[in-house]
């Protein structure tokens, strides 16, 4: 039986969509670094008190850190979690890794890509370049070796990875779940094809013709649920709509680094009350002002 989603109207609420993510699920988070992270879905996971998640992907930021901060994550299999040179190490992620409450099976971009591709291609493993000689192998007893039958070369073999759920945020989508993304897609296309279930938020649900006109990046038949969630990637960017909210990210990083009451205050203010209340707290106009001029765009990063 196909895993394609053949319905024509997949609109639902954030609560109902996220209810489909069970405790302990392997979750692929869309976007990358501080761009197009599925933050509305992540905040709803926090509100619903999800536990024991295994997060997989490439280079991420506040999405993973926030989930780790509330104790939702058992295992991180990302290739990077942090706030780059701008805001530094991921505070909750590093604390949990250092005190042993988070298992970090650090992965690497090509490796996680190969595992997703294996699932997408319907083969149980793929060979990958590199890794031999690195200590990443020690974090992955599940990897194996395979000898090329043609060259005799020994390569690392990695198993297919089908995330239980992929959470993707897109600037535009239709009721059927067709999603338009702007580049970089990061791993979102691969997640969409390799995952068992794709849940999407979009800035705006539009007529199908509009999404087709912009270009369908993830087709409806791969998407199980679509939720309209304006500013659903905030405080990460979601171009062409809004830029990175540096002030908010700094506020989060400070709260998470401090932990305890500071973190609770952040959660009480921004996460617990829900997305509508969240949006009321934002200065969305400032973040969408990047289009005015390059100077104004640059100012958002000072």
């Amino acid at each position: 039986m196909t895993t394609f989603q053949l319905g024509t109207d997949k609109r639902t609420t954030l609560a109902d969509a996220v209810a489909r993510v069970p405790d302990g699920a392997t979750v692929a988070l869309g976007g990358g670094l501080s761009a197009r992270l599925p933050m509305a879905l992540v905040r709803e996971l926090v509100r619903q008190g999800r536990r024991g998640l295994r997060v997989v992907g490439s280079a991420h930021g506040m999405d993973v850190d926030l989930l780790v901060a509330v104790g939702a994550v058992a295992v991180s299999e990302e290739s990077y979690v942090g706030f780059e040179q701008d805001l530094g190490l991921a505070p909750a992620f590093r604390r949990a890794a250092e005190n042993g409450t988070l298992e970090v099976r650090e992965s690497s971009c090509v490796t996680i890509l190969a595992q997703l591709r294996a699932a997408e291609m319907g083969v149980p493993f793929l060979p990958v370049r590199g890794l031999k000689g690195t200590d990443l192998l020690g974090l992955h007893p599940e990897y194996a070796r395979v000898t090329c039958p043609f060259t005799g070369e020994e390569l690392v073999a990695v198993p297919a990875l089908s995330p239980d759920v992929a959470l993707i945020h897109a600037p535009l989508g239709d009721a059927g779940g067709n999603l338009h993304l702007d580049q970089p897609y990061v791993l979102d296309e691969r997640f969409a094809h390799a995952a068992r279930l794709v849940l999407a938020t979009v800035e705006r649900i539009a007529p199908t013709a509009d999404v087709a006109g912009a270009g369908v990046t993830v087709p409806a038949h791969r998407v199980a649920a679509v939720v309209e969630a304006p500013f659903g990637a905030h405080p990460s960017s979601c171009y062409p709509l809004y830029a990175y909210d540096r002030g908010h990210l700094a506020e989060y990083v400070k709260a998470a680094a401090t932990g305890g009451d500071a973190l609770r205050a952040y959660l009480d203010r921004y996460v617990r009350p829900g997305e509508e209340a969240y949006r009321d707290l934002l200065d969305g106009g400032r973040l969408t002002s990047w289009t005015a001029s390059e100077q104004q765009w640059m100012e958002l990063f000072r």
Partner: protein
Amino acid sequence: MTSTGSTSTGSTATGSTTTSSSGPRAVTAQWGIDEWFVVVLARTIRDAEVVFHGFASPCAQVAMHVARRTHAPGSLLVEGATYAVDPMPGFVPPTSNDLALHRDAVYRMRFEEFFDAACRGDVDRMFLSGGQIDAYGNTNVTAIGGMPTPKIKLGGGGGGANISATIGALTLWTTRHRSGRTLVESVDFLTDLGHVTPAGSRAQLGYTGGGPQWLVTELGVFDFTPGGRARLTATFPDVTVPDVERATRFDLIVADDLAFVPEPTLEELGAVRAVDPLGVRRLEFGPEERGRKFRGQATTAR
């Protein structure tokens, strides 16, 4: 050329230049260590190379754009985390996956397209840094203190554990050499591949990439011996060999023809300032380094 020492509080080096009496094309210029450092990184790029930086790498990122605007206009630049090809950003934001880094790019690779190109040997040079770097150029961007019980959990390595095996040449850099904790005898966790790992040399591991070619630090420049060990070939003029020795935890090899790092040209300094009006390059330097200012009879060409 004179070192002006640590006199600044870390504010922007404005680099005002005046006409020198020594000739119409030699002028007195001022520059900071951040600018000079970026220029040295840029000079490791040869013209007509395909070059890449990872995310969270402001100095390398600025350096690649400087190279394209000065001595390496024929290089092909892949912007890390957006995978835009040869963009001309008006400024470099402090986060790597940002639309500002696409400007004027005709083409954006997909995530997998870049990593495939890197794995099959179509990328000539990558910039890599690390919280620890050993004499063979192995780097640790995963965890100080090692895994699974890190003392400091770093962000993670992105795709380096794969593509450091296959990319033509690596330019390593750190701005934390003086700390004495960065250039170490042995990395606590080997994330990205240098010339020789505990599991064997690149040749023994069957890797086709050339490995580390340069290691640039805020104290000086290293190349690598035929045996694959870092060798000091130049220092910044305000740095002595004993300074470097004190900061280096592996056995220091010093080139017979040790020199000072060549000064930047006016074009290079101009390019640094044009590419990076926000000064994100300075995010990599501690306050004690940001004050290092230099003055010299800069020329209009190297």
